[in-house]
């Protein structure tokens, strides 16, 4: 590979999927473009707040706060953890983001592979068929 480090990570991304990074970055930027959402990420660093406790901190409805949390969740910036009857919100931006990104890449890679497998199986079978070991 050309250069170790960042270069190989990028090459890996391209080899595996060849796209998708833009989408992830878009989602991340969109999620962080709102001051309330940035505040939620800050407040939930220790993961001790439930959505309802969090909602009390803002002059808006529970549903509106819940929506903000959902946007952050989709961008991989917070995750919900169940503790007893409560759902606690924890921001762990980098860990979640990276795990999600890796799985998204893997998913895209496999969707492409399955698609190509289907294409190969749709090709006519050759007449000479032998069993391979």
């Amino acid at each position, binding site marked *: 590979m050309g250069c170790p480090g960042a270069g190989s*990570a990028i090459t890996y991304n391209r080899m*595996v999927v*060849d796209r998708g*990074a833009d989408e992830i970055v878009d989602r991340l930027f969109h999620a962080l473009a709102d001051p309330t959402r940035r505040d939620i990420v800050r407040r939930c660093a220790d993961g001790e707040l439930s959505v309802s406790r969090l909602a009390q901190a803002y002059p808006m409805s529970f549903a509106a706060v819940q929506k903000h949390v959902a946007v952050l969740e989709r961008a991989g910036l917070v995750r919900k953890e169940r503790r007893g009857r409560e759902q606690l919100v924890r921001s762990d931006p980098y860990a979640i983001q*990276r*795990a999600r990104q890796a*799985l998204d890449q893997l998913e895209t890679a496999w969707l492409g592979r399955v*698609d190509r497998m289907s294409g*190969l199986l749709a090709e006519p079978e050759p007449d000479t068929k032998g069993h*391979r070991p």
Partner: protein
Amino acid sequence: MSVTSVDKDLDTLTLTLVAHFDAPAERVWDLWADPRKLERWWGPPTYPATVEKHELVPGGGVTYFMTGPEGDRHFGWWRITAVNPPRSLEFRDGFGDEDGNPSTELPVSTVRMQLVDEDGRTRMELRSVFDSREQLEQVLAMGMQEGLTLAVGQMDALLA
């Protein structure tokens, strides 16, 4: 579309994918077991794979390289841990160098593939588990940073 379901588990770093093919299990197995067929689907069209070694036996391995748009080669390997033709295959999947030495920078995953007959079709279940979160984070931190730098660069260009 052949893919029937995809599930991603962030806690266990696992991807589970189910696909259905209109072909008997033997033909689907052949896509894995025949190196010439394998190289027609493993890599994306922009990074086609060339399989060099292909031994689908426990303890055996597969080595291949993917050729990039500029002729750049990237080496990958499988270590076979279990094989049961034409039903299941389990292997460790990673990148490395020309001699098959595993890369310390790129993530390794364990892949388990199963084929089941279902109503005249074949159901393929694939489960891929990344080895460690630490390794993954190291790799993706670099990728993510690069992605953000690119995005910020694009924003700067738009604002200029």
